[in-house]
């Protein structure tokens, strides 16, 4: 049920963000309608109004249908996760392609209408414009990205403490939190630098207004990113302060960590909407608007300008996004590789999950070692490393936390950490007994089969390979 609710919420957020960013571009603003430069008279004409009304209706239908489909897809959570993830990935693909096709298709239709009707040049149409005043002040806009280095230093600061340093160096998974924290802060820092280097946009013949709008955008973004980085550090410090003497992090601390780590999301989304409303207010003062009509380079929805040496340009549909200049071979290669990368990740992820769900757990004693094979990973244990074998009626009662692998209502597979047990490995079908416990110096390994006799057979086979003295207890 938790997975259903979680993914239903995630789907709603995805659809909501897509709708807010791509589905609401229906107002005439900055001399544009749906990303196409038009004179206001043309934007208010009967033909365009009817076209926009059709677009509005189709958009609402598309997003409403996708809310229903995405919720229905979540029902697969109650079955196998791999099946759910595969169906969910297909839905996500359909949704992304559909949303883009809807937007780009209508953008192109409106562009064709503009060319057909000769609605060109809504105001001093030029290809490129630069405001010298905004460009000069560019370096003085926004908060310095160096703050992110300070935040990374704060993440490293707890290492001064001997106990924490020892925990980080000796624990198998201790590095995950600091490395994740540093990577997240560095990512925010890189985004911060990219935004400060972003080309200043020219909205008006009035330089002061251009400076004001561009400064406001860079200030909002840089503060939002610095704030996000700060909360990322705070989340890490909460975790570090919550580690007990045994290296255990309580569930309460992890919940607080998760809550603090979601705050950057609110910062960024809040920053986006605040910036958009501030920009609208500022541009209401624009008495000498300047519109750069570069629609010919955007007519298919993507950017293709052979005269522009830039590889990445700000997207017309969402100022957050950057897109590649498809007139450049590097732009085409980058886009192709990005699509291939996403496709491979999705397919690989689904295949791995199918393997976890449907490849059976096997225990194969060989001459020198014991091989445990499963859909997630294989594990070999030399007989000399086995310190005990036992058949248990159930998995020892403990609070187990998954480090890697997968765990759901069907199986527990991969590396785990128990509050009392410590680090361990599991290759288990949930709800099936007995459980074979193989003790090693690296912690216990728990294995079982859906077939009771098979588990008992594994026990017997292992017993034959190892010294009988300390072993042989069965329940």
């Amino acid at each position, binding site marked *: 049920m938790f997975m259903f609710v979680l993914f239903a919420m995630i789907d709603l957020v995805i659809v909501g963000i897509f709708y807010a960013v791509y589905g609401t571009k229906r107002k005439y603003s900055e001399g544009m309608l749906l990303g196409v430069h038009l004179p206001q008279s043309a934007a208010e004409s009967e033909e365009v109004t009817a076209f926009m009304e059709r677009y509005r209706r189709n958009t609402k239908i598309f997003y409403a249908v996708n809310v229903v489909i995405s919720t229905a897809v979540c029902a697969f959570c109650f079955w196998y996760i791999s099946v759910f993830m595969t169906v969910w990935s297909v839905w996500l693909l359909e949704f992304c392609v559909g949303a883009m096709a809807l937007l780009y298709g209508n953008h192109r239709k409106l562009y064709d209408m503009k060319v057909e009707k000769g609605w060109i040049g809504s105001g001093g149409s*030029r*290809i490129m*414009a*630069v405001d010298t005043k905004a460009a000069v002040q560019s370096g003085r806009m926004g908060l310095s990205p160096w703050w992110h280095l300070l935040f990374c230093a704060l993440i490293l600061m707890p290492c001064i403490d001997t106990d924490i340093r020892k925990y980080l160096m000796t624990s198998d998974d201790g590095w995950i939190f600091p490395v994740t924290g540093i990577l997240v802060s560095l990512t925010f820092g890189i985004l911060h630098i990219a935004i400060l280097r972003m080309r200043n946009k*020219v909205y008006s*013949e009035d330089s002061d207004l251009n400076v004001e709008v561009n400064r406001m955008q860079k200030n909002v973004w840089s503060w939002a990113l610095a704030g996000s980085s700060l909360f990322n550090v705070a989340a890490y410090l909460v975790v570090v302060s919550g580690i007990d003497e045994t290296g255990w992090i309580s569930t309460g601390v992890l919940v607080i960590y998760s809550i603090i780590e979601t705050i950057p999301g609110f910062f960024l989304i809040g920053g986006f909407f605040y910036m958009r409303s501030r920009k609208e207010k500022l541009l209401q003062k624009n008495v000498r608007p300047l519109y750069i009509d570069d629609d010919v380079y955007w007519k298919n929805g993507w950017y293709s*300008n052979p005269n522009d040496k*830039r590889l990445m340009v700000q997207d017309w549909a969402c100022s957050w996004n950057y897109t590649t200049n498809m007139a450049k071979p590097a732009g085409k290669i980058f886009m192709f590789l990005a699509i291939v990368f996403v496709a491979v990740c999705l397919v690989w992820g689904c295949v791995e999950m199918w393997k976890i769900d449907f490849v059976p757990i096997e225990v194969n004693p060989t001459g020198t070692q014991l091989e445990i094979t499963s859909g997630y990973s294989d594990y070999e244990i030399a007989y000399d490393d086995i310190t005990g074998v036992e058949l248990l009626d159930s998995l020892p009662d403990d609070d187990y936390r998954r480090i890697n692998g997968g765990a759901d209502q069907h199986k527990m597979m991969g590396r785990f950490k128990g509050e009392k047990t410590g680090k361990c490995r599991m290759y288990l079908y949930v709800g099936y007994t007995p459980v074979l416990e193989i003790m090693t110096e690296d912690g216990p390994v728990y294995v079982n089969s859906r077939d009771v006799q098979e588990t008992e057979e594994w026990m017997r086979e292992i017993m034959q390979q190892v010294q009988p003295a300390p072993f042989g207890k069965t329940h």
Partner: protein
Amino acid sequence: MVLKIDMSGETPIYIQLRNEIVKGIGRGELAAGENLPTVRQLASELGVNTMTVSKAYQLLKSEEFIETDRRKGAAVKPAQSMGGPAAAGYREHLEDELELLSAEAKLRGLKREEFLRLCEDAFAEMGV
């Protein structure tokens, strides 16, 4: 000041840049002493090579419209400092250009009064 460059035009970009900056100074949109963007900054904003902007700045410097400083960057020269060696041959250059423009205007069918009015309007835009 807003510089407008036609990237697909026949006039080289560095000439367009030079012309736009001179017009800006003439119209008073770029005040004496006002800083211009650095070569790198302007190139990045326009999406052109730094060499293109550098060439335009060198031209403007040789014509004594701007001055460059390693630390402060490029800035508009005060009007009184624009009367150096570059200004000496300007009258001859202007006469040459006007002759060409007059010839073209005549061939395109413009009347003398119309041509003079256009000259007057363009000069009036410079605030004089």
